[in-house]
C-alpha cells in the first residue's frame, strides 16, 4: 500500500466520498432515502450527490421506510444497486418486515436466481445528545437475521473501504454508521482512497498481552482510551475491532484471546440479548482452555435509551471497561 501525504478527514467525508466514488464507478448504484437529495441528508453524508449525479441517482423519497426498502428491493431485482439511507436507527423499524422477510431471504428463496445487492445505511448509537428514538443500537436484530451482512466502521479509512465493499457486495449489507464518530477525524487521504476492505475481517487496533477488548463501531475509540488508561494499572490490553458482525471473524478474535487468555466484549447496545452474548459464547466455545477467566461483557444497560442528560451514565466508558478488566480474575496469575 503506497500512501502519499495525508490530511485529516472526518468519517462523514469518507462516507460521502465512498458513495461518490461508487456512483461514479458504477451507474447502477442509486442512493435513496429521506432528505438525501437536495439537503444531502440530515448528517450530510449524501451531500452533493444529487447535484453531481442527478435526482434519478440520488433520490428524495416519500417519507415511508418500508416503502423505501421495498422499492429498493424491486430496483435491485431489476439489476440496480440501491444504497438506502435510514435517517436514524429507530426509523428503520418500519422496514423490518421488508428486511427480514424479503431482503434477507430473497437469494435463498430463489435458489440464488434473485440476489439483492442492496446496501442499507443506518446511523446508529448514541452519544450525540439526541432525544428519544434517535440513539438506538439495533445491531442485535440484524445479527439474528441470516442472509444479511452486518458491517460497521470505526475509523475514517474503514468508513470508506467498508462502504465501498458493502456497495460492491452481491448480498444485502446493513451498514451501521456510528453517529457519534461522523465528525471524528483521522489522517486519511481522500484523494487516494486506497484499499477497499474485504467484508468479514476483524483487525487488531492495538496489540497487548494482558487481555483482549473485543469491540466495534462507536466503542472502538473508547476501548483504545481504556487501553491507554490501563497501562497505569499495569495492564497491556489488546483491542480487536470486529468491523463485521456478520460474517464473524472467529480467526482474528480467537487468535487474540488465545494469546491473552482474557477478554471483555464492549458495546453500547443493551447487554441482554445483545451482540456480546453471541461473541462471548463463541469465543468461549473456541478458546475455553485458554481462558483464565470468563469472557465478560460491558454494554449499555437493559433499558430504553436514556434522555440526553443521562446518556453518559448509560454508555460504556473507560472506567466501566477497566472495572471489567479488573474482574478478570488476575489473582489466578500471582
Amino acid at each position, binding site marked *: 500500500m503506497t500512501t502519499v501525504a495525508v490530511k485529516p478527514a472526518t468519517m462523514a467525508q469518507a462516507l460521502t466520498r465512498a458513495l461518490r466514488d461508487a456512483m461514479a464507478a458504477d451507474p447502477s448504484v*442509486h442512493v435513496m432515502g429521506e432528505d438525501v437529495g437536495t439537503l444531502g441528508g440530515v448528517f450530510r453524508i449524501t451531500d452533493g450527490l444529487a447535484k453531481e449525479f442527478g435526482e*434519478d441517482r440520488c433520490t428524495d*423519497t*416519500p417519507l*415511508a421506510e*418500508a*416503502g423505501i*426498502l*421495498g*422499492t*429498493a*428491493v*424491486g*430496483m*435491485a*431485482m*431489476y*439489476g*440496480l444497486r*440501491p444504497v438506502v439511507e435510514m435517517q436514524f436507527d429507530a426509523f428503520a423499524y*418500519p422496514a423490518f*418486515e*421488508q428486511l427480514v*422477510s*424479503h431482503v434477507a*431471504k*430473497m*437469494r*435463498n*428463496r*430463489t*435458489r*440464488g*436466481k*434473485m*440476489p439483492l445487492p442492496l446496501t442499507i445505511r443506518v446511523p446508529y448509537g448514541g452519544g450525540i445528545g439526541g432525544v428519544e428514538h434517535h440513539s438506538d443500537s439495533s445491531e442485535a436484530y440484524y445479527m439474528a437475521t*441470516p*442472509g444479511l*451482512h452486518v458491517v460497521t466502521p470505526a475509523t475514517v479509512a474503514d468508513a470508506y473501504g467498508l462502504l465501498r465493499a458493502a456497495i460492491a*457486495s*452481491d*448480498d444485502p449489507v446493513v451498514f451501521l454508521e456510528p453517529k457519534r464518530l461522523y465528525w471524528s477525524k483521522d489522517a486519511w487521504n481522500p484523494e487516494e482512497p486506497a484499499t477497499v476492505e474485504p467484508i*468479514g475481517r476483524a483487525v487488531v487496533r492495538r496489540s497487548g498481552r494482558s487481555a483482549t477488548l473485543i469491540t466495534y463501531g462507536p466503542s472502538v475509540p473508547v476501548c483504545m482510551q481504556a487501553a491507554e488508561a490501563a497501562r497505569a494499572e499495569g495492564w497491556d490490553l489488546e483491542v480487536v475491532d470486529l468491523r463485521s458482525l*456478520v*460474517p*464473524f471473524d*472467529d*480467526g482474528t478474535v480467537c487468535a487474540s484471546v488465545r494469546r491473552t487468555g482474557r477478554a471483555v466484549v464492549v458495546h453500547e447496545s443493551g447487554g441482554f440479548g445483545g451482540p456480546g452474548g453471541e461473541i462471548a459464547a463463541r469465543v468461549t466455545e473456541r478458546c475455553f482452555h485458554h481462558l483464565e477467566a470468563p469472557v465478560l461483557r460491558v454494554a449499555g444497560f437493559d433499558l430504553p435509551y436514556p434522555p440526553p442528560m443521562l446518556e453518559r451514565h448509560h454508555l460504556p466508558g473507560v472506567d466501566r471497561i477497566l472495572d471489567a478488566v479488573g474482574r478478570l480474575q488476575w489473582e489466578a496469575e500471582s
Partner: protein
Amino acid sequence: MTVMEQRGTYRPAPPPAWQPRTDPAPLLPDAEPYRVLGTEAAAKADPELLRRLYAELVKGRRYNAQATALTKQGRLAVYPSSTGQEACEVAAALALEERDWLFPSYRDTLAVVARGVDPVEALTLLRGDWHTGYDPYEHRVAPLSTPLATQLPHAVGLAHAARLKGDDVVALAMVGDGGTSEGDFHEALNFAAVWQAPVVFLVQNNGFAISVPLAKQTAAPSLAHKAVGYGMPGRLVDGNDAAAVHEVLSDAVRHARAGGGPTLIEAVTYRVEAHTNADDATRYRGDAEVETWKQHDPIALLERELTGRGLLDEAGAETARRDAETMAADLRAHMNEDPALDPMDLFADVYAEPTPQLLEQREQLRAELAAEAEQEGVQG
C-alpha cells in the same frame, strides 16, 4: 406596522401554496363495476381474445381442482384455490407483454402459470420442496408473496428501475382485499404515484380475508376509491367478467406504458372455495352466499357470451375441457413423483459465498447425514 395601521389593508387571499395539482374527478371510479359480457361492449371484444380467455379459464379451474386434490393426497403442503377468481388470474397474465413483470400473491398460481411458468415449478412453494420453484427472470414473474402486500413496493421499484434504464416494462402487482389494509399497500401506491412508475395494481376483492368479510376490512365506498388519495385513477370492474377485467387491465397497462403512471383496479369477485384446504369456510359464511356467486361464475358468463354469439359450440367447449384434462393429468403425474431433495442445498444460497460459520454447519449436517446413512445401513 401597528395593528391600527393595518386596518383597511386587509385583502383576503387563499393560502399561497394552495393549488390542486390534479383534477380529482377523472381519478374516481364509476359507481358500478365495469362489465363487458352481456352488454353492448361485448360486441367490440375480439373473438380470438374471448376464445383464448375461455380456454385459459377452463384450464385454470381444472388446475385449481387438481391442486386441491393433490393437497388431499398429501402431495402439496397447502393450496389456496382461486376457483371463482379465474377471470382475474387469467386476464392479469394475458394483459401483459412478455417483457413486462408480474408480482403475484400466494393465491395467484394461475396467473403465474398463465404467464408461462411451468405448472409444476409454480407449485414448488406449496409442495414444500423449496420456496420458489421457478427462475423469476425466465418469465419475469416475481416469487409468490406470502407476507401480504409486501410485493407491491417491489413492483413499484422494479417498474421505476426499468423506466430509469429506459426500458419499456410495466409491472402488474396483485393483492387481495385484505392486503389493502396493510401499510405496504399504502406506501407502494404512494411511491408509484409520486414517481409516476409504470405499475398496475390489481386488487382482487373476493369478499374475504380468510374469515373476515370486506365490511370489517374497510368502510370505503369501494377499494378503487383509494386511488384518488394517491393521485392515480381508480377503476372498478366486475372481476368475474374476463373480458371486462382484460380490457380494464390492458387499458391500465397501456396507460402506464405511455408514461401515464399507475392505476389501481378493484376487481369485484368471490372466493368460492375455503381460504385454503386447511380452512373451514362454514364457520364464517353460509351456503346461500356462495350459491349466489356461483350464479355469476366467470366461466359460465363467458361461455354464455361465446355460445350466444356462436363463437363456441359443444365441440369447442369439449376441446377446452380436454386440454384442461391433459394439463391436469400431466400435473398429476409430475406431482406424484417425489421431488429430488438435497439437504445440502440448505446452505447453498444464503449468501453469494457461504460464511465460515455456514461452512461449519454444512459439515455438521453432512456428518449427521453420513451417520444416519450408516445407521440405516447397519439396521437395513
